[in-house]
């Protein structure tokens, strides 16, 4: 019965191939990215500290060499590290590069691996094969790391050594940090008098603008309401296709991967950036509409992730029990899934509304409607008493909504 299930349709073959090579890319690149990041960060730290001391703070530079040389250098050092040594990336992902029968790599194998990596893994093409081409050429494979408990650990792996290393790293980072920012730290306190007028104005609010500000505040809150409402309407159905446990089979898995990918891209772009995009798109004549769109798109991405993660942790026993009564797919959804997610969904929505109220002010700062625009206008016009009034209003509103939503959410759990 199941032998027929292994169909040889070209589409599913293609999807399988894509899935496999995605896995290969992930396996080969995860440790590499870690190693690359470590080397690049160390490089920047060293060159910056060095140039700060030799050239002085004004001329301190990050690379000392052209940026492309820095990039290529970091990549090469990372690959050298992985080919000829035991890299931190490999250790982090619990793998070791070993030959057949877990033999340590010979010099020849390491050299082949190093050059092979440039031809196979760097342009990604060699990762379509399984095992990847550079692993095939060199005869080296990723083997799971087996910790040998009989051999005594080196001093830096014993608990005291780890603490000493951690202490050393923290102290040196702090030392570098303080050296670089010391002057700014002094200025933070010595120039405090500059903000005195602002503080003074904050406690002397201008009540004349209260009415106009209040109507802007209502606009801001309604921006958040609209964005949350429409984001919920879209995110609820989408979340079912973005939950790993509910998307099975080649097509389901593809939909899942694409949806999660799009959502994480949308989420990584801040609402303020979306606001600028939409201000250009729908023109600034519809400022608050642009603001709603910005919050809306970010909320969809955020809520889909939260909802889907909740779906992924539901108790499948209940679904099983409902299925066992002879219920149809929709009935299983209604009685096996929905009761487990209703309250968390409402709670997430309220939480997102909370964020949206605050974010609506922020997107207003770039001109996307609401009270944020008023605030930035007062601040840039140095009318601090007015700005203070607006700030107080925002604080009160945000606090009230925050309080209400957290009270409601604690009732739901």
């Amino acid at each position: 019965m199941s032998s027929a299930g292994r169909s040889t349709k070209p589409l599913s073959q293609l999807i399988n191939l894509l899935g496999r090579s995605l896995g290969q890319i992930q396996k080969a690149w995860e440790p590499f990215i870690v190693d690359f990041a470590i080397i690049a960060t160390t490089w920047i730290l060293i060159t910056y500290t060095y140039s700060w001391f030799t050239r002085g703070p004004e001329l301190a530079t990050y690379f000392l060499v052209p940026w492309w040389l820095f990039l290529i250098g970091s990549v090469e050092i990372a690959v050298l590290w992985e080919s000829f040594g035991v890299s931190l990336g490999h250790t982090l992902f619990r793998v070791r590069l070993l030959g057949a029968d877990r033999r340590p790599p010979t010099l020849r194998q390491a050299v082949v691996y190093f050059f092979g990596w440039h031809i196979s893994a760097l342009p990604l093409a060699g990762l379509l094969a399984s095992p990847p081409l550079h692993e095939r050429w060199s005869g080296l494979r990723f083997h799971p790391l087996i910790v040998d408990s009989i051999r005594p650990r080196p001093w830096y792996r014993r608990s005291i050594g780890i603490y000493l290393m951690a202490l050393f790293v923290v102290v040196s980072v702090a030392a570098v940090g303080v050296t670089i920012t010391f002057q700014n730290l002094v200025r933070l306190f010595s120039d405090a008098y500059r903000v005195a007028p602002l503080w003074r104005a904050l406690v002397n609010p201008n009540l004349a603008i209260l009415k106009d500000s209040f109507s802007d505040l209502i606009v801001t809150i309604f921006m958040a309401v609209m964005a949350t409402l429409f984001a919920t309407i879209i995110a609820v159905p989408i979340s079912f296709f973005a939950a790993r446990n509910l998307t099975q089979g080649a097509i389901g898995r593809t939909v899942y991967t694409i949806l999660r990918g799009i959502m994480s891209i949308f989420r990584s772009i801040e609402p303020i950036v979306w606001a600028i995009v939409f201000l250009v798109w729908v023109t600034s004549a519809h400022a608050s509409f642009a603001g709603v769109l910005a919050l809306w798109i970010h909320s969809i991405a955020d809520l889909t992730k939260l909802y889907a993660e909740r779906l992924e942790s539901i108790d499948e026993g209940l679904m099983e029990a409902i299925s066992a009564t002879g219920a149809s797919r929709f009935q299983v959804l209604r009685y096996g899934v929905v009761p487990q997610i209703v309250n968390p969904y409402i709670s997430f929505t309220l939480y997102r509304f909370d964020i949206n109220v605050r974010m609506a002010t922020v997107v207003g700062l770039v001109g996307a409607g609401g009270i944020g625009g008023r605030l930035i206008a007062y601040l840039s016009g140095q009318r601090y008493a007015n700005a203070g009034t607006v700030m107080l209003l925002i604080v009160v509103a945000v606090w009230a909504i925050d309080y209400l939503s957290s009270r409601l959410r604690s009732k739901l759990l």
Partner: protein
Amino acid sequence: MEQSGHLAIKNLTKVYERGQVVALKDLSFSVKKGEFLVVIGLSGSGKSTLLRCINRLIEPTSGSVSLDGVDVTSLPSSRMRRMRRGMGMVFQHFNLISRSTVLTNVLTGRLGYTPVWKSMAGWFSKADHELAMKSLERVGLEEKAYVRADELSGGQQQRVGIARALMQQPSLLLVDEPVSALDPATSNSIMQYFEEINQSDDITVLTSLHFLSLARRYGTRIIALKGGELVFDGLPSDIDDSRFKEIYGEEAEEVEVR
């Protein structure tokens, strides 16, 4: 009805694709109407998989299951759902809707008989409500009908599970480790409900159990699984010390539960 029995299992095999684990190996046996069949064996011996292959919550790899002469394994999914109505199931961890009332939980036993659009709105017929109250009466929980399911004790929750299975008016009851999450005294009272259902309704009961003492006391017949294979099929009284060690391994010792 043919002589081979009410429920017939032929060459049933289940291989989990991941890791190529063989959970059931070429299993064949049949069950007569009205039997109280207990499946024993160590954890991981395939008891749960066997029960779930019968109502196809788990899809068997090969072999067949037939109930009253109907080949269950080859049914398309819509007819399979209708088939499941006749097989009630009770679970180790009760699997109730914890936020809903006991009554709602019991009513879900009627989902297979209720039109989808009605059940979406949570409407069940008056007859279903009456049946639900009757089922709750049978397990002695009629007073708890409007209490939330998660406010009940473990034993009470399992009784709700039994009432839900009764709502299906099944001819076969599949019971998966019903008392593993309960204390010994409660275990016995739960097992007595199954005994009563088995005897007065003539419902065939197929249950997996951890404790041999309970299996001996309630089973009319015992089968034992080891590594997915049938290693014993006979009367409870036939299991002596050497049989016991065969099933559970050399180091095992019997624990009494009263």
